[in-house]
């Protein structure tokens, strides 16, 4: 609401001047003083005198009177008629809609100024023709806005309920609908007033609006143009008054919009696009040299990864969504990252590629990655450019929703060629050939023709195949697949899984991180599984042994909740995942855990290794199964 203070107070001053003009100690707006024509500012005439020696300040204020009464008058008249049409059309629909909203829209077929001129031709210039023209002009705007708002409100439950109760339609429209469509209406009124002032002053400027000697800003500018040589300031005053008033109304409209519809506040752009990093990378523990040597076969090794909300001064800044996550992926291995939505599995994979949303930031940890050339780098310490060189080449991603992840306005083939050309120095024609080949390899029939198709022309399964083709185009060393089958039909899911398995056979060096919440998929595709819960890794190990004997109650519960043919009953996990910022002091799963004891609730459990190659974060892992 504080945003409205500025425009509203300026408008209050303008309106007060306009309303009080007759009682203010002003000169007579029509009193001529020919000997002093074009006199400059003086004590008696603050802004000087015009071509007939009349007081400019007085005429400026009386001009506002004409402009504003025409603009506000017609804006309100149009609002009244337009709202009635929009409400009726939106509420009753059908034939009523045709005779109200659609009929009003015919006016929109004519350019606005033309319609006004047409009215002036028929009725001549003057105050009332202007009001009529502007009312006619703006009625459809209101009708449309109110109509759209009415349609929305109409579908709401309380309106349906009233209709079911047999309330008279007009009563519903006036008592229930009208208050609900008021916010967009108010915005529209301020917009229309500004626009009406523009048209009114324009017509007056042409000599087709307000009739002299009544003062009007448009007329004043018209007269001042003729006297530019003698008194250039005469042009300035009405111009400033006019532009200032319109600016104020526009400002009011903008502010009203942001107050009435806070969701419309735009996002903050994209930090990755700005050359300079806005914040230096947070200090992190340096990659441990020994640890690197211990696991020479590791392709990617994440340790202590912490991701937090990173909006300086924003709500919940510093709140940790992922805490101390660590796991390793070996060359040629498939690791499944499993957990409920909100467990942080997607964020983890995005952090590795530097694609976290702007509001999130990595606040700790390392992700050492062994490049093709053998060099070891910390992925979390890369800037956008460092990430860029790896992304799509060595490390690539497949996203969940291929229809949103593919650009709708580019052909599939071009989107594929693009990633090849970004990392390899080959010709465009060669890249195109390769793109078609790739499409064939991922199982898209008639690849030659399909390469020329747009994403919307493909089926959901084919889009995901194209997405995978993009990901594997440069023979990546690491493929991060973020729920690539979740949005697909079960039969298509199986085909996509088979495709990924097939691609792994073609490229046995490729490590895969497969993010999913589907344990059946894990059993089918993964070598090892890493279970995440509330932003932490709770258990990790080879798929076969973890499934055979889970060492964390959460894993056990997840396995228990998978529908299987021979299962006696499905076990749902009671309770919900704790919200970030409301983590229990001890084990984050303790509130939902059957095995929890007092010790579980006191401090976060450390990591245990029940057997080589397995980890769990449970004090009672011995007793779980």
């Amino acid at each position, binding site marked *: 609401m504080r945003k409205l203070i500025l425009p509203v107070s300026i408008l209050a001053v303008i309106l007060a001047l306009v309303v009080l003009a007759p009682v203010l100690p002003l000169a007579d707006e029509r009193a001529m003083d020919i000997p002093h024509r074009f006199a400059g500012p003086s004590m008696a005439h603050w802004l000087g005198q015009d071509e007939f020696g009349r007081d400019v300040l007085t005429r400026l204020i009386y001009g506002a009177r004409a402009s504003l009464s025409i603009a506000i008058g017609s804006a309100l008249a149009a609002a009244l008629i337009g709202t009635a049409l929009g409400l009726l059309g939106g509420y009753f629909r059908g034939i009523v809609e045709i005779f109200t909203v659609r009929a009003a829209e015919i006016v929109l077929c004519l350019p606005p100024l033309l319609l006004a001129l047409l009215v002036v031709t028929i009725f001549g210039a003057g105050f009332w023709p202007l009001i009529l023209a502007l009312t006619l002009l703006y009625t459809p705007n209101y009708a449309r806005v109110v109509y759209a708002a009415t349609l929305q409100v109409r579908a709401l439950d309380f309106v349906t309920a009233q209709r079911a109760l047999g309330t008279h339609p007009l009563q519903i429209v006036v008592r229930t609908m009208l208050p609900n469509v008021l916010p967009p209406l108010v915005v529209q009124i301020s917009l229309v007033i500004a626009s009406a002032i523009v048209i009114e002053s324009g017509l007056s400027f042409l*000599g087709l609006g307000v009739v002299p000697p009544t003062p009007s800003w448009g007329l004043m500018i018209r007269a001042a143009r003729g006297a530019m040589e003698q008194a250039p300031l005469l042009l300035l005053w009405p111009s400033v008054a006019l*532009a200032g008033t319109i600016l104020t109304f526009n400002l009011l409209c903008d502010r009203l919009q942001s107050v009435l519809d806070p969701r419309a506040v735009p996002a903050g752009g994209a930090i990755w*696009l700005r050359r300079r990093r806005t914040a230096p990378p947070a200090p992190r523990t340096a990659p441990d040299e020994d640890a690197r040597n211990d696991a020479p076969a590791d392709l990617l090794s994440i340790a202590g990864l912490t991701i937090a909300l990173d909006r300086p001064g924003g709500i919940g800044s510093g709140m940790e969504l992922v805490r101390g996550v660590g796991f390793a992926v070996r060359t040629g291995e498939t690791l499944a990252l499993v957990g409920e939505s909100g467990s942080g599995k997607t964020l983890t994979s995005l952090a590795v590629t530097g694609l976290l949303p702007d509001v999130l930031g990595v606040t700790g940890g390392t992700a050492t990655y062994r490049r093709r050339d053998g060099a070891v780098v910390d992925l979390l310490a890369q800037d956008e450019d460092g990430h860029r060189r790896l992304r799509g080449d060595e490390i690539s991603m497949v996203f969940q929703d291929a229809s949103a992840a593919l650009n709708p306005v580019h052909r599939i083939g071009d989107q594929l060629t693009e990633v090849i050309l970004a990392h390899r120095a080959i010709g465009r024609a060669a890249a195109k050939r390769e793109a078609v080949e790739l499409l064939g390899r991922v199982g898209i029939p008639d690849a030659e023709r399909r390469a020329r198709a747009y994403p919307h022309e493909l089926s959901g399964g084919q889009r995901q195949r194209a997405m995978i083709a993009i990901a594997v185009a440069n023979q990546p060393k690491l493929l991060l697949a973020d729920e690539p089958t979740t949005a697909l039909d079960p039969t298509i899911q199986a085909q996509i899984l088979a495709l990924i398995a097939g691609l792994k056979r073609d490229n046995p060096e490729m490590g895969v991180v497969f993010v999913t919440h589907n344990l059946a998929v894990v059993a089918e595709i993964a070598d090892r599984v890493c279970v995440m819960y509330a932003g932490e890794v709770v258990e990790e190990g080879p798929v076969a042994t973890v499934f055979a004997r889970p060492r964390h109650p959460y894993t056990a519960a997840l396995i228990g909740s998978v529908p299987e043919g021979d299962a006696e009953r499905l076990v749902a996990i009671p309770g919900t995942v704790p919200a970030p910022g409301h983590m229990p002091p001890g084990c984050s799963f303790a509130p939902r855990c059957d095995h929890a004891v007092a010790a579980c609730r006191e401090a976060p459990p450390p990591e245990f290794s029940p057997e080589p190659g397995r980890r769990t974060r449970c004090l009672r892992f011995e007793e779980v199964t």
Partner: protein
Amino acid sequence: MLRYITYRSLVAVFLVWIVVTLVFLLLHLVPGDPAEVLLSQGSTAADPQAVANLRQRLGLDDPLWLQYAHHIGGILTGDLGTSFRDGAPVAGQIVQRLPRTLEVIVTAALIAVLFGVPAGTLAAVRAGGWIDNVISFLSSLALSTPVFVVGSVVILIFAQELRLVPAGGYVPFAVDPARHVLLLLMPAGTVALALWAVVARMSRGSVLDVLERDYVRTARAKGLKRRRILRRHVVRNAMIPVLTVLGLEMGTLIGGTVLVEFVFNWPGLSGYLVSAVDARDYPEVVGIVMVISILFVFLNLVVDIVYAVLDPRISLSR
């Protein structure tokens, strides 16, 4: 695609028919005798003999359906009647003046896009920064200053005070190309200012919207260079709604250059319209309004088709 264009064209033809009928009806909807209304000046009653003459010239004594048939027939054959003032055919004047008006509009649109798209994109990329604030303030100012104010101030500064340019006028391109362009740039630049603001604001909003899309993340995941992402995946997609709005704005401008043509003494269609309205020369006004409205409808049609070409999803949804 062809089906879509056919469908949209039929809608356009229908709209043109509505406009033509509306303009016809407008005179007849006026309460009282239209001839008398047209001839009256303020409170002075019209001369009965003149009213009778005008009724005859406008064919107002014929039955309404016959008048309507004449009206439609005239438009189909390109006969828009003759002027009250000098008896010259209205169509001839329009053919001569329309290209000059279109020249101003197209030049203004080019200038607006040339400066508006980069400004809006820059503002979006630096959203919340000082560049964004400056561009946002400038565009508010440009949107709030009517063209005739801008035009008058331009003349005051550049022609009157600095004496860099003439105060307006027109020279055919064939006579003096350089002077033609100079004289064109003043009205076009003035119109472009407000248009620039519209394009910049739309571009900013649209780019911000596109930056949030998944496919931009995909483009980043591909390891494309910043400039390429911005050009091919952000601005290319963001331009679709911007161009639509620009097209619609240009349509409005066909009738809206009235003021700027008046200010710069540019002999386009609109100046003709103003003098016709001033003289209340009904056939001239109707002829011009009709031509502009038809252009307006067809420009909207072209915008729709271009939109469909730019966004391949559109044509399928119809």
